């Protein structure tokens, strides 16, 4: 677990076959009027394993904080695994804090579209993954 500064950032992972990636961070808001948005995007290939654990902690004296944390995970292979635990600890009221997490597969319509343009399946998946992590 690392403690990070408040910044707007996007973190990207491509979890390859047989890999395990763990992201564990507490984002601390401890001063007035801090704003931050953190996004983690990850693609997990077959037999890859990912854990995302992120906490937004808004301290008592962090008035006016506006915090957002988003996890977006794409599972590619049959045995891709993911655990997403977005947490909030909010100790005061004049704030707004949200998180969102989604775990899913490649959109079949996107895949169909690319393949209908003559791109083979493997290449199509590659394009979609690249766009997702772009």
């Amino acid at each position, binding site marked *: 677990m690392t403690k990070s500064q408040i910044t707007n950032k996007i973190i990207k992972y491509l979890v390859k076959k047989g890999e395990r990636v763990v992201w564990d961070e507490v984002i601390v808001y401890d001063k007035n009027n801090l704003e931050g948005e953190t996004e983690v995007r990850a693609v*997990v290939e077959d037999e890859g394993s990912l854990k995302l654990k992120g906490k937004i902690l808004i301290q*008592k004296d962090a*008035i006016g904080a506006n915090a957002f944390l988003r996890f977006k*995970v794409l*599972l*590619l*292979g*049959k*045995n*891709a*695994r*993911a*655990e*997403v*635990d*977005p*947490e*909030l*600890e*909010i*100790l*005061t*009221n*004049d*704030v*707004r*804090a*949200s*998180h*969102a*997490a*989604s*775990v*899913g*597969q490649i959109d079949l319509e996107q895949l169909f579209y690319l393949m209908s343009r003559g791109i083979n399946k493997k290449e199509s998946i590659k394009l979609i993954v690249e766009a997702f992590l772009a």
Partner: protein
Amino acid sequence: MAKYKYGFFMPEDNVFKAKRGLDESVVRIISNIKKEPEWMLDNRLAAYQKFLKMKMPSWGADLSGIDFANIFYYVKASQKTEKNWNDVPADIKTTYDRLGIPEAEKEYLGGVKAQYESEVVYGSLMKRFSDLGIIFCGMDEALEKYPKLVKEYFGTLIPMGDNKFAALNTAVWSGGSFIYVPKNVKVDMPLQAYFRINSANMGQFERTLMIIDEGAFVHYVEGCSAPVYSESSIHSAVVEIFVKKGARCRYTTIQNWSTNVYNLVTKRAKVETDGVMEWIDGNLGSKITMKYPSVVLVGQRAHGEILSVAVAGRGQHQDAGGKCIHLAPDTTSRIISKSISMKRGRASYRGMIMMAPGAKNARSKVVCDALILDKKSRSDTYPVNKINESEVTLEHEATVSKIGEEQIFYLMSRGFTDHEAEAMIINGFIEPIVKELPMEYSVELNRLINLQMEGSVG
């Protein structure tokens, strides 16, 4: 006699009261008084050993205030355990008045009457249920009359070693409901715990077992939204529900224990193919609540739904949420949690979604919204989402905020006071869950939250 927070004493004319604290002899005495079969006594004793060995859960709310040695684990009430109405705390009485609760019910809720005088009203209902083949009785009675059925299911979904409080409940349980709904029987009105007249149903260690056979439907309502005064500082129930193929069960709880109570409850439902389980869970009272109704989806296309409302006021920590375990393909689940913290209260959402390998096309959506009404209050969200199958969809979102100033301003510009405006916004906030409650409950819930809010910062 220890003096409880509200200055109550245990009435002296109980038929039987086990000694304070817990040891093997207390467990034996409880079983003996109930004239239980041997297997249940063995079960209790084994659970007691488990209870001793297991550690207190340290991952959630602060439970260090529980003094296990200072609790009565079994009190068998006589017909004459009526307390004096004058002894009921004034704030609870005021709440009853303002909720407009009828006199007879007030006395029952305040613990003045050991029984709700409802024989005339509910006798005919009970007959209607039994004509349909529905079994609806106390657990003690069920153990006596339907021992095979009880033995087949008891403790199979929540084993005694599940957690420390499940072990405690298994060792000392008394009271609770037993429900069996036969195949394809659809019960058109909610079964409510207080229909059952000849047993105290708001015990400390209730044990409830429900079996909803194939294609059947039942809605069970437990608790009540009016404050329930309890002399004991711990309430630890276990509820096991078996939803068979194509059946549907809805279980509604509104908990409003007095604020001296630790409310630590384990609730779980097993749902077979095409079955539907819905938990509607409202937590208003108690000092600390830890309760995460769970749905285990074992059959294809089974669906689980958990709607949870928590209100944490002064001195309260509501640690509530839900769990959905997807073990079969095409299973779906939804959790909606709404919490309100005020007056230094703390509301936490704690939940889990687990998708096992092979649960193809499982879908789950979790939405947690929290309102914090003042700057001394606190709100947390602790979700765990374990996805062990790639062909699934999971969505989770949570938001914590205060009431928007522009919303308050808008309503005040229309002539409402700040308090009215706040109350309206909160009623709107919990509306998605309140609308699922039986009408009389939703009306009371809204009124209660308004009452609790009085004096909170506008």
